[in-house]
């Protein structure tokens, strides 16, 4: 692929044939892609899937089992659980994707700068990064949201406080790996400015492991944000975020089990789809990367 002037000799060519190959990963990859397409459609246009208002209260119809009128039953306010699951896709996915996007951009920039900096700066900045890596994520998210206040947005911010450092570490390792490759030396010899080399040559060549990590991280982000909702600091009612729905459904678990079951099933299915695509992406883009030992949940 031509990245403008980056087509200097020695730059690893990224073949345009890669995309179709991605889908040749068996039925699970196709199913995961289809599921995510549906989830994406729910996020953009929930009206396509249900005509019901997810917040319409009908006390006479409270806690009804699944039926033709209410395929997933109703909740404690008589609201349609299917409508709430459909409308819940947007807050759930948007929060997870923005969390990872935020961490990715902030962390990658930091990692890029750290990796390109001189040796002593590199050491000092890595100590700072390591400090953030040393914090247990859920514990700190709990502490930060108890200070900043509850809610989905604050949870995203609180998790990003620790999450960016993972991308900084990954990006730095990538930069150190390619910094002395021939195409970088060549552009330096051609007299290009450092920041230009950073953005035009280092960045694009460091990105595939970051992309793989981001895909898998979205699934982790969904799980962590849902867990924070479950602990009471995340999405607040009446927002139909999936984790928050399971949390309220828990109160009715023993007598009305469908209420907590279906929103949780939605989380599971979407997370599974992201994980399958992430693993596939790794096989295609970055087959050498190994197991990640740490995966806080």
């Amino acid at each position, binding site marked *: 692929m031509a990245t403008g002037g980056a087509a200097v000799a020695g730059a690893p060519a990224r073949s345009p044939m890669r995309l179709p190959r991605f889908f040749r990963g068996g039925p699970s990859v196709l199913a995961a892609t289809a599921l995510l397409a549906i989830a994406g459609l729910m996020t953009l246009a929930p009206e396509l899937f249900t005509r019901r208002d997810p917040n319409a209260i009908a006390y006479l119809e409270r806690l009804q089992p699944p039926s033709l009128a209410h395929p997933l039953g109703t909740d404690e306010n008589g609201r349609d659980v299917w409508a709430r699951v459909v409308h819940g896709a947007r807050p759930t996915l948007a929060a997870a994707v923005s969390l990872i996007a935020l961490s990715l951009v902030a962390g990658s920039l930091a990692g890029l700068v750290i990796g390109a900096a001189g040796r002593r700066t590199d050491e000092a900045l890595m100590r700072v990064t390591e400090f953030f890596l040393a914090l*247990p994520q859920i*514990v700190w998210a*709990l502490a930060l949201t108890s*200070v900043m206040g509850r809610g989905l947005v604050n949870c995203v911010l609180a998790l990003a406080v620790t999450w960016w450092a993972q991308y900084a570490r990954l990006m730095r390792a990538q930069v150190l790996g390619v910094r002395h490759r021939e195409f970088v030396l060549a552009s330096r010899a051609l007299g290009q400015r450092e920041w230009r080399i950073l953005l035009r040559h280092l960045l694009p060549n460091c990105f595939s492991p970051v992309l793989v990590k981001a895909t898998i991280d979205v699934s982790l982000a969904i799980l962590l944000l849902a867990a924070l909702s*479950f602990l009471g600091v995340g999405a607040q009612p009446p927002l139909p975020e999936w984790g928050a729905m399971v949390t309220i459904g828990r109160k009715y678990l023993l007598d009305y089990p469908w209420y907590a079951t279906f929103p949780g099933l939605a989380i599971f299915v979407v*997370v599974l789809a992201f994980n399958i695509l992430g693993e596939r992406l790794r096989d295609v883009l970055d087959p050498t990367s190994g197991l990640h030992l740490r995966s806080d949940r």
Partner: protein
Amino acid sequence: MTLVLRRLPLLVLLLAAISAAVFALTQALPGDPAFIAAGGGDATPEMIAHARERLGLDRPLWVQYALYMRNALAGDFGRSLVNRKPVIEDLAAFWPASAELALAAIAISAAIGIPLGVLSAVRAGRWLDRLITPGSVFLGSMPIFWLGLMAVLVFYRVLDVLPAAGRLTVGLAPPPAVTGLLLVDSLLARDLTVFADALAHLVLPASILSVISLAMITRVTRAAMLDILHEDYLRTARAKGLSEPRVVLKHGLRNASVPIVTVVGIQLGQLIGGVVVTETIFSWPGLGLYAVTAVENQDYPAILAFTLLATVVYVVINLAVDVLYPLLDPRMRG
């Protein structure tokens, strides 16, 4: 030992940074602590000024941090805003339940994950092996709070074979506290009724929590064994006529133990977040439930003390893992 000593300054630095971060949180708290300490709404300006002086809130920030550190090192984290008891007493009371849960969970996932990993490496490419990766992705995609609720539905509501909340049946007297771990203490007291009851209460939460680390332990064990199974010394062991299990377990597993012990250790640290969630599902009276209740009640001294403690435990576990390397692998000594 030298490695421990070399790591020590870094650890001290890290702990200082962590305590500073927690101290920074205290500065960001909503509300005026002097106002709260003076008794809230009825406090006169003099009382508030007095409390401010008593708490050192009129001193420069770095002095306040030094005071905070001195108190924390002496185990003084202030009093809970809810029950007015010193927070350290609560932490001491709730801590063993969490330790028991986490240790049981890591024991379960190691007891299942390591044999599973060895078996799938030995029979690489066979059906068991081919199930490991999809299986771990499948399990890893489940929100554990939801999995826990589903387990409660099945094992408590439908089958009615396991209790769904707490550590002991209400009314049953706990054994005299020695370690704080009910399984151990009840055995020490030779009280089999309590032991059985405690075990029944522990099975569900510990199994759910073990799901977090099971997949990773299995996959790392498998990868470590695959790396080793084609080494020359295994061929030599076979040539000597040793039985296959002996070759795999004694010569293989032992040499693969460094990454395996590492992953088990790291996963123990990773369980901390899961402990908080699991304790909430099963009303397990540990630090996690304590912290979540404190967050609900905005009991800031309790929240901050928990944050500091959990972070220190997490950091120390991860350090211990690093230090364990050379003990297991002679090549890394010296």
